[in-house]
C-alpha cells in the first residue's frame, strides 16, 4: 500500500461518518418537527382527556356513554362512512374495470378525467354540489322541466346531499388504486379460463372478480377511514342536519373551548381509524387462508 492511499483512507472515514450524520439528520430533524407540530399536541390532548377537574378520571368518556347525543353522533358518522364507501365501490369498480379494458390512449384520457376532480379544490367541488342541489338549482329545474316533480325537492342541507358530495370526492381515491391493482392481475388467468371454455361472464365472476377483491377491499377501507375523519364536505352539504365526530370536535373546541370532550372524541376517532384497517387486514388474511 502506498502512503497516499493510507492518507486518503484516513480522511475518508471521518468524511463518511459526517455524511452518515448529515443523512440521519436530514430525515430526523423534519420528523421531530412534524411530531412537535402535528402529533405531539394531540398526544398531549389525548392525555388530558383522561383528566377532569385536576384529577385522573374517565369523566370525558363517561359522558359519551351517559349523553345519548354523543352516541348518536358516533353511530351517524359510521353510518355515513359506510353508505359512502359502499356507493363508491358500486360506482368505482365498473369504472376501474372499464379503464383497464380501454386501449392505452383512451385509458390515459379516462385516468385524466379521474385526476381532474382529484386535483380540484375540495371546497370548490363541495360548493359546486351546494349550487346544483339548492332549491332553485339546476337539478330541481331539470326535474320540474321533465315533469318528474311538481315542486322543488328539498335536497340541500340533507344527509343525501352529504352522501352525494362525499362519494364525488372519494371516487378517485378508490378508482386510482383499484385500477392499479386490476392492472396487476395476470391476464393469462382469464385467458386460460376462456381457453377452457368459460363464457366471458363466467370467467369474470369466477376468475377476475375474486382476484380483484383484495384491491376492492383495500380501497373500500381507505375510503371508509377517510370518511370517518371528513369535515368540510359533510359540514357544508349537510348544513347542520348531519353531525359527524369531526364536526363535534371542531364545535367543542371553537365554541366551548371544551378540550376534554373534544380530545376524548378525537381519541375514539383515532382508535377507529387505526384499528379498522388492522381488523380488516386480519379478516383478509383469514379469508385468504380459508381460500387456500
Amino acid at each position, binding site marked *: 500500500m502506498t502512503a497516499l492511499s493510507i492518507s486518503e483512507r484516513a480522511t475518508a472515514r471521518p468524511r463518511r461518518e459526517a455524511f452518515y450524520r448529515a*443523512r*440521519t439528520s*436530514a*430525515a*430526523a430533524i*423534519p*420528523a*421531530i*418537527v*412534524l*411530531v*412537535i407540530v*402535528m402529533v405531539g*399536541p*394531540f398526544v*398531549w*390532548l389525548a392525555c388530558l382527556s383522561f383528566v377532569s377537574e385536576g384529577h385522573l378520571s374517565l369523566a370525558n368518556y363517561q359522558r359519551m356513554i351517559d349523553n345519548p347525543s354523543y352516541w348518536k353522533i358516533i353511530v351517524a358518522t359510521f353510518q355515513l362512512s359506510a353508505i359512502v364507501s359502499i356507493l363508491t365501490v358500486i*360506482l*368505482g369498480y*365498473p369504472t376501474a374495470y*372499464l379503464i*383497464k379494458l380501454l386501449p392505452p390512449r383512451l385509458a390515459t384520457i379516462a385516468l*385524466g*378525467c*379521474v*385526476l*381532474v*376532480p382529484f386535483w*380540484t*379544490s*375540495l371546497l*370548490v367541488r*363541495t*360548493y*359546486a354540489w351546494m*349550487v*346544483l342541489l339548492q332549491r332553485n338549482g*339546476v337539478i330541481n*329545474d331539470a326535474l320540474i322541466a321533465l315533469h318528474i316533480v311538481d315542486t322543488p325537492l328539498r335536497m340541500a342541507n340533507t344527509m343525501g346531499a352529504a352522501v352525494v358530495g362525499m362519494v*364525488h370526492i372519494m*371516487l*378517485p381515491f378508490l378508482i386510482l388504486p383499484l385500477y392499479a391493482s386490476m392492472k396487476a392481475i395476470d391476464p393469462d388467468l*382469464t385467458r386460460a379460463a376462456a*381457453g377452457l371454455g368459460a363464457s*366471458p361472464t363466467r*370467467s369474470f365472476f369466477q376468475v377476475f372478480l375474486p382476484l380483484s377483491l383484495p384491491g376492492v377491499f383495500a380501497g373500500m377501507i381507505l375510503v371508509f377511514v377517510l370518511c370517518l375523519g*371528513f*369535515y*368540510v364536505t359533510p359540514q*357544508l352539504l349537510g348544513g347542520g342536519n348531519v353531525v359527524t365526530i*369531526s364536526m363535534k*370536535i*371542531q364545535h367543542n*373546541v*371553537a365554541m366551548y373551548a371544551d*378540550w376534554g370532550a373534544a380530545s376524548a372524541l*378525537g381519541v375514539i*376517532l*383515532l382508535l377507529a*381509524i387505526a384499528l379498522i384497517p388492522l381488523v380488516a387486514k386480519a379478516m383478509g388474511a383469514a379469508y385468504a387462508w380459508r381460500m387456500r
Partner: protein
Amino acid sequence: MSNAAIHVPHSHRAWLYVLVSIVFVFLLVPIFIVIPMSFSDSKYLEFPPEALTLQWYRTFFGSNEWLAAARNSLSVAAVATLISVPVGVGAAYALNEARGRLFVLLRFFLLLPQLIPVVLAAIGVFFLYIRLNLVNTFAGIVVAHSALCIPFVVITVGAGLKTFDKAQENAARTLGASRLRAFWDVTVPQIRLSIIAAVIFSFITSFDEVVIGLFVAGGSNTLLTRLMFLSLRDQLDPVIAAISSILIVISVLAIAVFVALQRPGREAAR
C-alpha cells in the same frame, strides 16, 4: 392487450359503457358547470344563464377582503412549498439510502401528518399555538402547512428515487465529484419530474387546506379557503362561483403543464 384473447362484442358491454359514462358525468359536470354559472347575472346562478355578467368577478377583484385573503393564501402556499420541498427531498434521499429500524420509524413519523384526520391535527396545532402565541400569525400557518406538505414530498420524491440508478451518482463521485455536486448534477436532473410533481402537490395542498386554517388563520392573516368556508356556511354567495372558476382553471392548467412536462421526459429516458 390484456383482453386480446377474449372477444366480447361492444353491444354486450353496453350497460358497462352507460354506467361508466354516468360516473364520468357525475365526476366532471359538477366541476365544469360552475364556470358558465359564474357568468350568470342571477343571484341564484341559473344554468343556462339567462344573461351574462362579469359582476361576480368584479366583486371579487374589487373587494379588499377577498383579495387580501387570496394574497395570503398564495404567499403561505409559496413559502410552505419553499420549505417543504427541499426538506422533503433531503428526507426522501436519506430514507432511500439508509436501512435500519430507526429509519423505518422516521419514515412513519414523516408520513404521519397524512395519516391522522386533519381535524385532529388542527386541534393539536391550535392547542400548541395558543401556548406559543402563534395563533393567527403568518409563521404559524406556514409551519403547519409545511408539516402537511412534507409527507407528499417524501412519497413523491421517494418514488422517483426508487427508479433512479444509484450507480450513476457513485460513478460521478468516482470521477471526483463531491457528494453534494454528484447529487445536484446527476441525481436531481434524473428525479426532476418527481420534484416538479412535489412542488405542484405541495402548493395545491397548502392552497386548498381548509380545516387547519379555520383554527389558526384568523384576523389579518385569513386565507382564501377559510373565508370561502365561513361565507358558505351562512349563504351561497355568488362571488364564490367566480373564485371557484378561477381555481378550477388554475388546477386544470397545472395538470396540463405537468402532463406536458412528463411527455418529452419519458421519451428522452427511453
